[in-house]
């Protein structure tokens, strides 16, 4: 049994975990309901909304814990705070209870995610270094890989590199190569590889199928932003779209069509959406700010009102 200041902090961390789980479930329910709506948002708005959704459980849980701590350590700011934001036995923490188990499970899970992501990052850097050593520089930040397969991509967090295979250089015209490299440089400029990695860390705390949806939406938004960055007075959006389809056709020559229904549909959605976007056939709207604020307040309210209830509910099943 832990008492005193340490117990307060351990209880606060337990509150953070409970609030995180409640906020995560609420965000998951919202994402499940609105997933098709995201696609009709403007690219910039969509990116902001996606970041907000994955960060919201963290922000909400920290905010809720701070309010609980404030309610315990000082006079309450709001009358209502005492009704909702209270935690029994704040200065006593029993490690051999569901509180202790919750802390340990959350800690192990978080460590698992972080270690997994860091190992992935290390492997990625090693493979990237290896790939760079097998490629030759074309221009600043652009490397050619001698390979018949058709591919172009950008990787690296700080020292960003754009790669294009000799197969793609051979099959594409100079104008098409300008589009491809312009697209890759846009990814590099927008720090997309780093953002993708960070986004994947946040989504790892959601159930896998939902995380896949969120990542798909982010990928699409990033690709559309990079496609759009290439369009200028000399390069039309229809030309970018036709280059994209030509590259897809070349990719299809070397990669077998995947049988996974989910993947195939996702793939179809992404390429089609990118082409429709470039052709101006999507009626994209800005995010409804009022609705976003209402949703954030709703998630906060759900957390505040549920913590005490969840606490009691757990203790009806498990002994304190």
């Amino acid at each position: 049994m832990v008492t005193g200041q340490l117990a307060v902090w351990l209880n606060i961390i337990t509150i953070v975990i409970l609030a995180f789980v409640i906020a995560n479930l609420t965000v998951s329910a919202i994402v499940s309901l609105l997933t098709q709506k995201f696609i009709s948002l403007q690219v910039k708005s969509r990116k902001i909304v996606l970041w907000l959704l994955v960060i919201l459980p963290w922000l909400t849980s920290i905010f809720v814990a701070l309010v609980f701590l404030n309610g315990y350590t000082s006079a309450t700011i709001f009358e209502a705070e005492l009704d909702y934001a209270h935690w029994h036995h704040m200065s006593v923490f029993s490690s051999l209870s569901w509180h202790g188990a919750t802390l340990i499970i959350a800690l192990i899970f978080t460590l698992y995610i972080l270690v997994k992501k860091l190992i992935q990052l290390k492997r990625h850097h090693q493979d990237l270094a290896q790939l760079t050593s097998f490629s030759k520089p074309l221009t600043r930040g652009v490397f050619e890989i001698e390979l018949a397969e058709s591919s172009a991509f950008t990787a690296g967090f700080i020292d960003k590199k754009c790669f294009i295979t000799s197969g793609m250089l051979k099959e594409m015209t100079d104008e098409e190569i300008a589009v491809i490299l312009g697209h890759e440089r846009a990814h590099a400029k927008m720090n997309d590889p780093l953002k993708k990695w960070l986004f994947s860390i946040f989504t790892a705390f959601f159930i896998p199928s939902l995380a896949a949806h969120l990542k798909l939406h982010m990928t699409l938004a990033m690709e559309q932003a990079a496609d759009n960055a290439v369009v200028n007075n000399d390069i039309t959006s229809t030309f970018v779209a036709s280059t994209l389809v030509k590259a897809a056709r070349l990719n299809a020559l070397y990669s077998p069509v995947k049988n996974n229904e989910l993947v195939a549909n996702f793939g179809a959605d992404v390429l089609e959406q990118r082409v429709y976007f470039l052709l101006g056939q999507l009626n994209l709207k800005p995010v409804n700010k009022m609705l976003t604020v209402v949703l954030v307040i709703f998630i906060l309210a759900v957390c505040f009102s549920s913590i005490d209830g969840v606490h009691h509910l757990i203790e009806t099943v498990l002994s304190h």
Partner: protein
Amino acid sequence: MQLGEVEKLVLQYLWQHKSADVKAVFKHFEKIRGGSLNTYQSTLDRLYKKELLSRHKVTNAFQYQPKVERYELIGQLIRSVTSDFVTDDNSLVAAFSSMSADFNEEQLNKLESLIEAQRIKLAKGN
């Protein structure tokens, strides 16, 4: 998979010469970059352990051959670096035609027709 500078050079040599023993490798690199016979023996061992080379004994010495071709190794590295962000957590890259390999001919033809229609529409508008 991390390859050292000498490992890469030896691998390049074997990709060109298909098969060689340590003496042949040493003889080739002795003139270009120096090093001892042991250096190349341990390099060949490491490449064998990394499963990049196969070997068989001819009289008293091992003959080494590349187990993977250059394009296969590079293909593996590209796949590892560009694994799909949605289906596999390993992707930290932004690819030009990401996820477009999952398309069939019909879908691509449909998109091409759509682009052509838009092009004609824009040309008429101008």
